[in-house]
């Protein structure tokens, strides 16, 4: 009886499996791959030089540098915060966790432009809560790197937490308890046992955070003022060049962004494969 019914499902499954495959791949091809291919195609339509020149222009290079700076500051901060926050949520149960858990998701729920506007209002030198005080001690947040980094941190904050929490739950506490019975302090246990056990969750969170920081547009537009050669990151550069009908610049920068994101993903996959081998 069971073998008959199993064969029936397998037989019926072939048709539906192919339908699913075609649907899934078609959807991906149409909505994800086609636009990317189009960008690559358009970029190199007139050869390698026009996009390369656009990117290596003064403003293009500055945009690239600024994008990398935001990544270098925002990603480590969000990684440390994310792991600490995940430990708090999973290992130290208390009533405040419900609040933290809800607030952590806020950046996912809010439109980046709203986040940008909120930061703008908070740090505005006229009438913002923090703006005037910071201006008095000589720190400029808006239309400068600090504001852009703040915006990037805000929008990419949940990734490491969200990727780390399930892994922490899965590994359980026994390995950590075993470490403590063997004489390891809390700090030693974290570095030698907990962190190695959750490293792939954290790494995946880092990759997603990096990609998000690199690509952030809405929130950064508002707080940076998008001043060419000063507060322009790569996505802002793309947008500006596109508006100026400078297609090679817009496409070239887009491809550069895509390559940076792909490199991040690839690096993690290679690391992981090496680890598994």
């Amino acid at each position: 009886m069971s073998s008959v019914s199993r064969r029936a499902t397998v037989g019926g499954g072939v048709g539906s499996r192919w339908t699913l495959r075609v649907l899934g791949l078609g959807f991906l091809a149409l909505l994800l791959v086609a636009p990317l291919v189009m960008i690559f195609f358009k970029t190199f339509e007139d050869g390698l030089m026009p996009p390369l020149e656009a990117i290596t222009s003064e403003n293009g290079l500055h945009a690239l540098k600024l994008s990398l700076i935001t990544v270098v500051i925002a990603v480590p901060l969000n990684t440390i915060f994310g792991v600490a926050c995940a430990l708090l949520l999973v290992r130290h149960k208390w009533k405040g966790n419900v609040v933290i858990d809800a607030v952590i998701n806020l950046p996912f729920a809010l439109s980046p432009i709203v986040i940008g506007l909120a930061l703008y209002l908070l740090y505005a030198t006229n009438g913002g809560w923090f703006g005037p005080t910071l201006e008095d001690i000589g720190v400029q947040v808006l239309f400068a790197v600090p504001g852009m980094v703040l915006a990037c941190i805000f929008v990419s904050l949940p990734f490491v937490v969200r990727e780390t929490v399930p892994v922490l739950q899965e590994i359980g506490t026994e390995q950590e308890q075993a470490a403590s019975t063997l004489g390891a302090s809390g700090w030693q246990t974290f570095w030698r046992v907990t962190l190695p056990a959750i490293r792939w969750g954290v790494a995946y969170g880092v990759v997603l955070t990096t990609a998000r920081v690199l690509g952030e547009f809405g929130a950064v537009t508002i707080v940076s003022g998008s001043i060419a050669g000063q507060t322009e990151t790569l996505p802002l550069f793309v947008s500006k060049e596109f508006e100026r009908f400078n297609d090679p610049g817009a496409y070239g920068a887009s491809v550069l962004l895509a390559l940076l994101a792909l490199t991040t993903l690839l690096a993690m996959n290679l690391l992981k494969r090496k680890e598994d081998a």
Partner: protein
Amino acid sequence: MGISVEGANKSFGDFQALDDVSIEVPDGSLTALLGPSGSGKSTLLRAIAGLEDLDGGHVLIDGQDVSKKPTQKREVGFVFQHYAAFKHMTVFENVGFGLKIRKWDKAKISARVHELLDLVQLPGLADRYPSQLSGGQRQRMALARALAVEPQVLLLDEPFGALDAKVRKDLRTWLRRLHEEMHVTTIFVTHDQEEAMDVAGQLVVMNEGRVEQSGTADELYEQPANEFVMSFVGEVNRLGDDFVRPHDMEVVREADSRTVEGMVQRIVALGFEIRAEFVLGDGTEVWAQLTRNELQRLELREGEIAYLRPAQAKSFNGSSPDHPPEASTPQGPRDEGDAERSAAV
């Protein structure tokens, strides 16, 4: 190093896991904490290790109150039911973990780890990862890891609980021998009375967060302090207020003043041992353990009437512990009440 626990209390919310528990574990002994799940035995073991904070009471190791010491300063070796192997480390790194924490130099760690791997019969597996070991090998690795730091006491939490029956039996023989060689004070938790009696010299029977009785296997079996211990450390029949071990249930073909009438319900041959199941006049089901020879002599058949005479019985209702049971069959209504009570437990 002897271990004592004095007046330990611990609750998880409304659940009282430990209720004024005190135990004494002599230096160098191998003691089993025995009880059903939820009896508090694991909580007690974890409290000794400092993995659980007590709400009240004290833990003393070698006379020193360690109740306020964190786990890493208590110098206990702990073995978990599910091994708690460090999955990202090799067997060598797992066993050497505690030594690395103590900043031993590499050559000394290597020598000690290989000595321990020989002791737990895992030589040549130093470079494997835990995922490449069988359950029994993983647990021996965990034991080597715990022993590496020369703990004052060794605590094992259902160490063989996740292993299959054959491996479990091998490992417990092996643990007993290991203890004979090492003489480190050892406490191990189990819900399996046979395992406890096989391995441990000293047993502590726990139930509902309390210690019911402690003593040697013989003491618990021969002089159980109460109904719970009697039924937990061996098979038992209930005849009214009396408790009778199946091997103390004599079967005869002729009634006298001390026998109870019963009908043979089923005869199960378990090799040389025979399990004869009876139903009494009031519906109580009891069984007698017979030898094959006895069965042949009695010529018992299923459906026949025979007479049961408890050679030895115990009652825990305040009367003397050993006495010949009453001749009469227990009264129906009272026994129904008992059945209800035991069903509710």
